[in-house]
């Protein structure tokens, strides 16, 4: 009797543990990083933010006991998506890497390739029709479909994930050009949870796309107070008009979606849906470090401080700006 009970308990526990798909949309500032934990315990990582987010993403993975990434996807070669992947690849065991076959010329892209090479890994081309052999769900790329796109954003690997009745779509930085193509290639596509393309920029989430795929929730990944104005108002308007609930990493922090294939729940680090009034930053006692070559200034804890011989010090932000220096895009001084 006792044995039977414990068997039933174990089975129940196993069902509970293994029937949930969990998707984490990490707050990595201005950039993307998404961790997917499948019902069978496999892990997929899509992007890892910019260079300075590599340690943030690594810590997040470690905190969840993750040592192996079964699938690693670099959506496209821009630094705000691949920068952090370099540290992740160096730190974790990676089974399979997927990337669109498109070149970039930056040192960041070269570093990513070198990190993959150093691990003895190969790269699978991510393109329309390629299936990720994940257990227990359907995972496949629906873009890119060719190599003639106008920019790297549109070469983004776009991943579609179906778990029973729930469909999730991850757009990378794909823009309207790709959205039209997807509508042509997958006319019946209906989505529950959309990772909106290109940080909520006006370049993406066009009216025809949103009204056609009619997501219940759109997740926008962008940095608080980013200088590009992401997300743009027209995008927010389009989503609102179509009755899509919006969650944003700049306002909500890291967002976690859990689903059993029938229903889903969403939780966020911060509940606030509206921007709160930011307290005036305390700048008095702080010291800033400028780079005399690039004319950029940083906080002293920034991971990309200039070489010692290129440094100049400011006692306030205003002083740095008055001297013609621009705030660093990573540490946001």
């Amino acid at each position: 009797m006792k044995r039977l009970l414990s068997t039933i308990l174990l089975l129940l526990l196993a069902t509970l543990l293994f029937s949930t798909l969990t998707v984490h949309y990490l707050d990595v500032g201005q950039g993307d990083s998404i961790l997917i934990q499948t019902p069978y315990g496999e892990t997929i990582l899509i992007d890892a933010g910019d260079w300075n987010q590599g340690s943030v993403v690594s810590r997040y993975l470690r905190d969840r006991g993750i040592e192996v990434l079964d699938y690693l996807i670099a959506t496209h070669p821009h630094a705000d998506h691949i920068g952090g992947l370099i540290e992740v690849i160096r730190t974790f065991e990676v089974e399979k890497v997927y990337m669109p076959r498109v070149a970039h010329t930056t040192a960041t892209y070269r570093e990513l390739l070198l990190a993959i090479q150093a691990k003895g890994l190969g790269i699978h081309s991510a393109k329309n029709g390629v299936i990720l052999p994940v257990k227990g769900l359907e995972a496949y790329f629906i873009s890119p479909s060719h190599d003639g796109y106008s920019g790297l954003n549109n070469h983004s690997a776009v991943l579609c994930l179906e778990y029973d009745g729930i469909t999730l779509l991850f757009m990378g930085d794909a823009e309207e050009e790709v959205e039209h193509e997807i509508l042509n290639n997958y006319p019946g596509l209906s989505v529950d949870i959309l990772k909106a393309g290109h940080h909520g920029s006006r370049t993406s989430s066009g009216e025809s796309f949103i009204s056609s795929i009619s997501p219940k929730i759109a997740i926008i990944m962008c940095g608080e107070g980013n200088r590009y104005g992401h997300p743009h108002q027209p995008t927010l308007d389009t989503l609102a008009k179509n009755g899509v609930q919006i969650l944003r990493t700049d306002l909500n922090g890291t967002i976690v979606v859990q689903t059993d294939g029938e229903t889903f729940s969403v939780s966020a680090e911060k509940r606030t849906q509206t921007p709160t009034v930011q307290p005036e930053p305390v700048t008095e006692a702080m010291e800033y470090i400028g780079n005399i070559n690039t004319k950029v200034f940083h906080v002293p804890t920034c991971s990309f401080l200039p070489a010692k011989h290129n440094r100049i010090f400011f006692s306030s932000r205003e002083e740095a700006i008055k001297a013609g220096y621009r705030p660093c895009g990573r540490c946001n001084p």
Partner: protein
Amino acid sequence: MNQQAQEPLRGTVDRFEEDFAIIEIVQTDGSIESVEFLSVPREEVDSDVKEGSFVYRDDSGWHVESDSKESQDRKKEIKSLMDDLFLD
């Protein structure tokens, strides 16, 4: 800081976002390389500068660099890495 002439600076355009070009600068300090990104207003960047362009800065702004050995080497290295790593 007085308004002195800007030192020459070289980089690679990672991307454009709105009114900015995001330019990757590689700095070498001894054997340590670090990467830094500048968000440069578009009006300071020549109109023929594209995503992926190798660029340099002088007093009048940012311009496309005529093919240098370093940029050729970078492109060649990336192409050969891709040919080597992509499985299909």
